[in-house]
């Protein structure tokens, strides 16, 4: 297993653009490197769920302020991702999937990444507060703190439950979007939070199963590494049942109508069926994990579908 610096040294290495993966030293990072620090692909999902929370909320918001709110959610998520990459530069350097990122590749200085994350955090929270209200801004600040500190620093390197509790970090955008319109948080946005919270473990464990070797090399205690492949498959199936129950709950509780309820039920049944395929699979070779790869891909479609029908239901009503 690759050696990883102790927790106390984290975030201080690399400094001065020392290349961790043998790249040449070029201390002037490109703007593209700063953009990569924001994890723009992850940001897409955050923007989408945040926008859905905003559009589903009762009340009116000026279109420009709605745009600013979504922009602030995106920038806040980018700031959290920048903190994450700043802290995990040494771990990223030993994982094939992440070794090309700006910090481990030596294209950016550690202190520049931290300053960038600080500026984006403050700018996104303050701007959201001025544009909408300070309840939404407080939720955004808490979500950045939760992802950067509770998940990245505290849970991820210590417990195989990292994804379960850390999943909450990605579940805040609908709450922030809702609060930007209403100034408070009611049962429906909390259920939307619960849907993303229950969706995250099976989504990431499906991925972790076929990139298990990478996590093992980096010393990250993901469930397939600590508890083995069969237990991870069992947990995926269990969480898919929880997810299905939570996803149907807004319809069952009368908070949303059949425009949401029927497709949400069908999508959830498909999710459980795919998780069942994963649970029945016995392969241990990543290249043969077709069921896991199918579940991972479908899980992205599932979340997008659930939130799309949520907005459709609210508008239909």
């Amino acid at each position, binding site marked *: 297993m690759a050696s990883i610096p102790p927790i106390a040294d984290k975030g201080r290495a690399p400094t001065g653009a020392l290349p961790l993966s043998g790249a040449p030293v070029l201390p002037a990072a*490109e703007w593209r490197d700063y953009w990569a620090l924001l994890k723009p692909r992850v940001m897409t999902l955050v923007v989408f769920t945040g926008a859905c929370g905003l559009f589903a909320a009762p009340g009116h918001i*000026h279109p420009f302020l709605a745009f*600013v709110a979504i922009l602030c959610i995106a920038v806040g998520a980018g700031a959290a991702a920048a903190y994450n990459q700043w802290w995990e530069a040494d771990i990223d350097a030993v994982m094939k999937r992440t070794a090309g990122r700006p910090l481990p590749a030596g294209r950016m200085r550690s202190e520049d990444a931290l300053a960038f994350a600080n500026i984006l955090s403050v700018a996104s929270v303050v701007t959201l507060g001025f544009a909408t209200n300070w309840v939404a801004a407080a939720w955004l600040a808490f979500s950045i703190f939760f992802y950067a500190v509770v998940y990245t620093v505290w849970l991820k390197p210590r417990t195989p439950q990292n994804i379960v509790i850390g999943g909450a970090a990605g579940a805040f955008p609908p709450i922030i979007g809702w609060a930007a319109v209403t100034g408070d948080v009611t049962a429906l946005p909390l259920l939307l939070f619960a849907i993303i919270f229950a969706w995250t473990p099976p989504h990431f464990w499906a991925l972790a199963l076929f990139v298990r070797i990478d996590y093992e090399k980096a010393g990250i205690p993901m469930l397939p590494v600590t508890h083995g492949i069969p237990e991870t498959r069992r947990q995926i199936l269990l969480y898919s049942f929880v997810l299905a129950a939570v996803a149907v709950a807004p319809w069952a509780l009368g908070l949303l109508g059949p425009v949401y309820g029927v497709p949400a039920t069908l999508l959830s049944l498909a999710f459980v069926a795919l998780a069942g395929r994963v649970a029945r699979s016995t392969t241990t070779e990543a290249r043969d994990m077709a069921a896991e790869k199918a579940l991972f891909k479908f899980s992205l479609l599932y979340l997008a579908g659930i939130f799309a029908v949520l907005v459709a239901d609210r508008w239909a009503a």
Partner: protein
Amino acid sequence: MSWSPEEEKAFVARRKRRNLVIGLVLGAFAFLFYGITVSRMVS
């Protein structure tokens, strides 16, 4: 650290592009706050 002329040229070009983007972002930020002010006054 001493650079070859090619490395120095590449460095200057990267810095110029980065500064241009920073300028654009700051301009957009100013416009954003102007827009927020106007939108809040109207709504």
